[in-house]
């Protein structure tokens, strides 16, 4: 009886373990080195953001995206949306596909990529209304082929009093 039980246990576990052999898995997230915009950089509506970043992965990159959204009053956004009706908070996502349409090369499969774009325009107005001035989050997301994802957030400030970036 005892031997039979022990044998059953052994067989079940050997079968499970042998079917469970280690596949190589990639847990290393891609790295994002965001050079600009700098923390607290001032951006003037109607101009383009000077975006400069380096993306690296130990195996292979997949894609990236950028999102800008309001971060008024910490992250509760209430001051931005509750009282002000004559200005509009800006929110936009750019995915890699948007840049590829403009002639960029895809980063898929590469280990290291330098991004240098001039086509991220902050509109001067939305639907005839000025942009709500204040702090915004600039977030860049990056994935690798295995599905690992990293992101980096930076605070920027949208202000009509900002100086325009010099064209590069």
């Amino acid at each position, binding site marked *: *009886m*005892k031997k039979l*039980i022990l044998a*059953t*246990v052994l067989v*079940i*576990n050997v079968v*499970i*373990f042998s*079917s*469970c052999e*280690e*596949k*190589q*898995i*990639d*847990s290393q*997230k891609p790295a994002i080195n965001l050079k600009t915009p700098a923390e607290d950089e001032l951006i003037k509506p109607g101009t383009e953001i000077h975006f400069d970043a380096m993306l690296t992965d130990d195996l292979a990159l*997949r*894609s990236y*995206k950028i*999102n800008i*959204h*309001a*971060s008024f009053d*910490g*992250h*509760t*956004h*209430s001051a931005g*949306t*509750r009282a002000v009706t004559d200005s*509009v*908070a*800006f*929110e*936009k*996502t750019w*995915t*890699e596909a948007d840049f590829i349409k403009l002639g960029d090369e895809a980063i898929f499969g590469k280990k290291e990529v330098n991004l240098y774009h001039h086509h991220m325009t902050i509109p001067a107005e*939305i*639907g005839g209304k000025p942009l*709500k001035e204040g702090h915004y*989050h600039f*977030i860049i*997301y990056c*994935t690798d*082929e*295995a*599905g*690992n*994802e990293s*992101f*980096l*957030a930076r605070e920027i400030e949208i202000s009509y009093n900002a100086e325009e970036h010099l064209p590069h």
Partner: protein
Amino acid sequence: MKKIVLVAAFAVIFLSSYSQSITLKGYVCDALTRESLPGAAVVLQPVEIVTVSDGNGNFFFDSPQKGNYTLQISFVGYKPFSEDIYLESDTTIHFHLEPIYFSLNEVVVSGKNSRTSLPSAISAKEIERSFFLKNNSVNFSSSLAKLPGISSMDIGAGASKPVIRGLGFNRVVVADKGIIQQNQQWGADHGLDIDQYDVDRVLIHKGPMSLFFGSDAIGGAIEILPAEVPKENITWGDVSLIAKSNNNLLGITTMTSLKSGNWFFRGRITAQTFADYRVPTDTITYLTWKMPIHNRRLKNTAGRELNASLALNYSRDNVSSWTYIANIFSKNGFFPGSHGIPDLNRLAPDGNSFNIDFPFSTSNHFKISHETDISFDNSSFYFNVGFQQNDRKEMSKFHTHYANQPVPESNPDLELNFRLKTTSLNSRLLFDKESRWNKVVGLSAEIQQNRIAGYSFLMPNYDRYMGSVFFASTYNIRQNLILTGGVRYDLGKLDTRDFYDQTLADHLKSGGYNEVDAGFYAQRAEALDKNFHSFSGAVGVAYNLNSENSLKINIGRSFRLPSANELASNGVHHGAFRHEKGNPSLNPETALQFDLDYSFSNRVFNFSLNQFTTYFSNYIYLNPTGEWSVLPHAGQIYEYTQSRVFLIGGEVELGYRFTENFLFSANMEYTYNKNTNNGYPLPFSPPMNVLAALTYSDHGKGKLMQYSVSLENQNVMRQNRVSNNEEKTPGASLFNVLCSMNWKVNNFRFFTDFQVQNILDTSFYNHLSFYRKLNVPEPGRNIQFILKIPF
């Protein structure tokens, strides 16, 4: 399980039926101090007559019939004792109970229950109320986490949910007096809503329990059992005061019980309030920010709890019926960094560590239920019916990323509200219970309705209907060898309501997206009408080799219906910062599970080994799709997908009483798992954990009747086996001191429990914590004191 052994031992014993009157008297005292023990529960088996020792430790049973019996005696803080006796004339027996204080092995199977018990060869541990005083943590789940194989998924210092062998959320069932607790188990930031002080006995089943509990009982089931009813008319109660230094917790819980004639009444009220908890660090680093933790207190993690419950029992002859009403309310603040990207301004101290500011959650769980057990000659019938409503709110100052979203006119700061109503019915008929082969058939039904409100969206409105039928049986091959097995069939129907977010659609269209793309995101939930069915079952053997060795083996199939969010939701989860997309084509998750439980115990040494192997053919998990979500606060879209998953692991427990006074105890748990689709481990896998304790217990002098002191060392190993996009968690070694004392001043008895947890104020992480991803360490040193006064 021992229950079955007991049933087996006595089912075949013929009881002589002479109507000659005999009295059985006895006396219960402490083996060390020889002090009498009033209030000890004495059970005469197999007739299941219960009595309680009086003020002088005496008890008696009126005119039992001649025959073989077992007397079982249990008293909080003492080893339960049982003795076989043959009654043929008036008998008086003295019992000397050995104190067990609070060894980890206090966990005992006392095996007496008037309810129809569930035949299963899965190891079941019974713990009693004193466990929650001596292993007291912030709530029911985190107190249970001291047991091997159980971990706690914590949301700050207030709310937690249980995890069994790495399976949590809706892969664990908690059944409170026969009614399955239904309260948004799927959510990472929702607690369990159980008052840990309002628990008399808990049975913990590690392993597949779908045969008896249906959907979700894959990891196991935590069964909260009703109190034992004393035979004699008696009135008693107790009040406990709880204080903890780490989060300035103050709590009070008080109970009153009254037994009169056929009626038994019990009421309990618990109130707790606590401040922001302290962490042993001045800064946390999240993303690339260094965030200061002012005064080493984690801002806005304060909370409150207010619970009340009533239980009423009517017992007569062969009928025992209970009616319960309970309301559990809690309010817990969220660390401001946990919902959105943390902002330094929001982490600045507000001068008050007791206040609860936005964001916070409230949860109110109301339950009313009834259960009745009727015994006939050779069968018994049990049923319960219950209604519960969980009302959960997440409050956060109105915010939106979509400029066109208006502020709600009423209750503008209500971000999310789930009102979940569940009505359930369970019935079981046990027959041939005195024969070698006893059988039970059961029928269950459940109706559930979820309704939502709030300016955010996470989970759709839905209605769910479930029905099931099962058959299980126990066959006693010999007195020490029992076969159990059963099958179950469940039918389920889930209707989810459609939710189209017009604001989001308009926002995306104004940003240049076309109708189709905007609609993809704006359709936050699909209307689905899904029908499910599933077979589950188990077969097992329990073998008591001799009085010291026992072995149980079980193979079971368990299942879980996909939840509404897994099927239908679509959008950014504000706590996970992830775009999660439901998958309407999911099938019920099924698992095939093997469990082995070996235990050895004698007077000085005990050892147990639990081993499990689980194979899911279609485990539901969030798979990164590699496709971007265009929504703010989301990276790629994660879609619910099914995969084959293996889990293997086990627990080892040992205790060695090397002198009369010294006890060494230790336990270890380990889980290995793997998603074979992508090769990654499962998320929220508990790391290996080793807990060792050295306990000295003795009787004291003068007013101190007994005391025990323990030094505990908990080694949480590092967890490097992580799912993708999950952080590895380093290990830690923690030291605790526990001291528990029984006092008697004149005729006034009371109990004190004093603990210092995390003596060295070590900074460490719980891999399962909701705040782990923010790199928030677990609470630091805590000194806690509990005073319990019976009256």
